[in-house]
């Protein structure tokens, strides 16, 4: 995969025989053993590895759950409870899968924020970034359809509300909505197609992940300094250095994940989803899963008409726009400096963006009334301003701090000035630049 010279030399006869015919071991060796990574990667860079094990865990638990699940509106809810009560370790599989979705999103949000902080999307990594955005979109679709499968009240009403967005699209909206639903309302055909797609999309994600990793191995990783690798001293071999560091981060991440599974498995869910779907009873507040809440807040923030666009279409456009804008980030950022470590103003606006995104999430869980609407509008404004105004303008007017000449120089400088600090004890990104 890597463009560089291969250092793989098979030691056994069988190894040479395979290498001459189908050099898969060479590919693995070049990609995950000798592949050079910057020596100054911090723990923020371990989430790519964490995400790949989360994807595998979700697929494995999901396949087993699918063996016990019945995708029929009259059976779905009971079949999930059968898994929880009667299937051997079924409760564990199901809690792993439902909390796994949440932890998948926690990891992907940290991964995206790391990319935004260190400017990982900048040339020549635009395609790498865009592939990541596609994975994120696929994840959102998968998560949404998966939440419908247990056929609880929030499953049903969440599906009703979210597919309802599509009716806002002029001309084709109703047709698109009916295509998604397989009818005029959420019903058995909806559940059937969502189950089929929920099973399909993770494999599409896996496919795009291969492209994502391929693109990564062509350009190489960024690093906290944002300076490209210039010499061999700037890098270390992927194995053992990155593997062991990623491994440690994975175990810590899994420990937090396990804490939720075993002690507070329903903390991230909604009680209403333990009530079977009832098309005649609307829940008091319909809320999506927590990981969609910021976008839900943006959707509901547009309460006014803009010219010919009514508030409903406006909200839908704003919501899709908030994700679409991610795709063009590489061209919105005009700064010549990649990493926020050397951009004092960008760093400030970045952390404000993070706070704002969490705030939007909280607003998404509130009813859309009174002061919450105005707060949502202000937060939505900052969300878009960060990408559309701050990113392009700041790059032109900001004076960056002095950049080191190379990764090695940055590392040596830090080790000289900083007191002897334990290797990698913390994950503070900016102090580890």
């Amino acid at each position, binding site marked *: 995969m890597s463009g560089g010279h291969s250092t793989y030399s098979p030691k056994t006869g069988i190894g040479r025989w395979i290498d001459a015919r189908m050099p898969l071991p060479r590919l693995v060796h070049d990609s995950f053993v000798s592949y050079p990574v910057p020596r100054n990667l911090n723990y923020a860079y371990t989430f790519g590895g964490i995400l790949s094990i989360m994807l595998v865990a979700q697929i494995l638990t999901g396949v087993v759950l699918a063996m016990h699940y019945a995708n029929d509106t009259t059976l779905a809810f009971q079949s999930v409870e059968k898994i929880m009560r009667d299937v051997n370790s079924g409760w564990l599989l199901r809690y792993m899968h439902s909390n796994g979705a949440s932890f998948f999103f926690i990891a992907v949000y940290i991964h995206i924020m790391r990319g935004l902080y260190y400017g990982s999307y900048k040339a020549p990594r635009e395609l790498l970034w865009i592939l990541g955005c596609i994975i994120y979109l696929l994840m959102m679709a998968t998560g949404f359809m998966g939440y419908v499968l247990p056929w609880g009240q929030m499953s049903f009403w969440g599906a009703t509300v979210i597919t309802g967005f599509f009716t806002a699209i002029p001309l084709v909206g109703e047709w698109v909505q009916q295509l998604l639903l397989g009818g005029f309302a959420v019903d058995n055909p909806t559940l059937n197609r969502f189950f089929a797609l929920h099973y399909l999309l993770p494999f599409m994600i896996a496919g795009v992940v291969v492209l994502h990793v391929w693109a990564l191995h062509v350009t190489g990783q960024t690093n906290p300094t944002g300076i490209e690798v210039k010499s061999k001293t700037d890098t270390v071999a992927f194995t*053992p250095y990155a593997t062991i*560091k990623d*491994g440690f981060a994975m175990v810590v991440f899994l*420990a937090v994940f396990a804490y939720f599974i075993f002690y507070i*498995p329903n903390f991230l869910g909604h009680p209403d989803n333990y009530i079977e779907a009832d098309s005649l009873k609307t829940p008091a507040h319909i809320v999506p899963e927590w990981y969609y809440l910021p976008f839900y807040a943006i959707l509901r923030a547009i309460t006014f008409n803009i010219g010919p666009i009514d508030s409903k279409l406006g909200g839908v456009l704003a919501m899709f726009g908030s994700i679409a804008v991610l795709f063009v980030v590489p061209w919105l950022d005009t700064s010549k400096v990649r990493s926020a470590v050397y951009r004092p103003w960008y760093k400030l606006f970045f952390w404000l963006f*993070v706070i704002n995104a*969490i705030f939007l999430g909280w607003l998404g869980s509130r009813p859309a009334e009174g002061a*919450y609407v105005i707060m949502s509008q202000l937060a939505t404004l900052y969300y878009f301003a960060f990408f559309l105004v701050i990113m392009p303008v700041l790059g032109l007017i900001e004076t960056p701090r002095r950049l080191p000449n190379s990764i090695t120089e940055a590392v040596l400088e830090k080790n000289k000035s900083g007191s002897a600090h334990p290797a990698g004890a913390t994950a503070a990104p*900016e102090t580890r630049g």
Partner: protein
Amino acid sequence: MKKILNGLAAIGFLLAGTAGVAVAAEEANHAAEPTHFPIHKPKEMDWTFAGPFGTFDKGQLQRGLKVYKEVCSACHSMNLVAFRTLEDLGYSEAQVKAFAAEYEVQDGPNADGEMFTRKALPGDYFPSPFANSAAAAAANNGAAPPDFSLIAKARGVERGFPTFVFDIFTMYASNGPDYIHALLTGYDEQPPAGMEIAEGTHYNPYFVGGKSLAMAKPLSDGQVTYEDGSPETVEQYSRDVSAFLMWAAEPHLEARKQTGFAVMIFLVLFAGLVYATKRKVWANVAH
């Protein structure tokens, strides 16, 4: 690290500030016509099944089952719970068989093509008190009493900010039983002057769906006879039936927490070993 902490603190202050404004706005509405429910948050109770080593109190579950059977089951079904699982409550196989035999279930068709009723077996599920949900609604003023199989997980009062953050660390997961207990013991409070209570409904400031509900006060002191000498009070009945419903909703709770402890020990030790290895690998590389 310090900067990250500062950042987190800033997030905390910002969120706390906005939440404060919102809460103040909400409280201003509280008068004779509240708009947010429940009017009172449920009291947090001490449950034996809470916390990392929580286990069910079998005596309590048996008492709770008795309350369910003699009181609640007149209106509330529990159709995801099989009699065989009652062995979890400390009953023997024979006792479960005898317990099931007190119920009649419909079976069939037999060889003549007829449906028939027979005594329930341990493999059967608790039968519903009504033939279908329409019959249940018709007999109860138009509102079908909810099924109880999952009620302890299907109810829970929103905790609000910042409590929900602390809940992660305190492992608070008793929203359901706390709510059920509060509701069952909350009927004696009188509505504030000026509040109008709809005909046929009953004021309860702990009800999550409004100021009053269709169900009348279901429990009264001395209603259910306990053989183990526990107090025969509404308070005790409410606790026992809440605990029982938690078991009904999450029968593998104990196994979950016990497995969890082993998994956490393993992961923490493994993390330590991996960390030590990581330090050794990176010892001679400045980074």
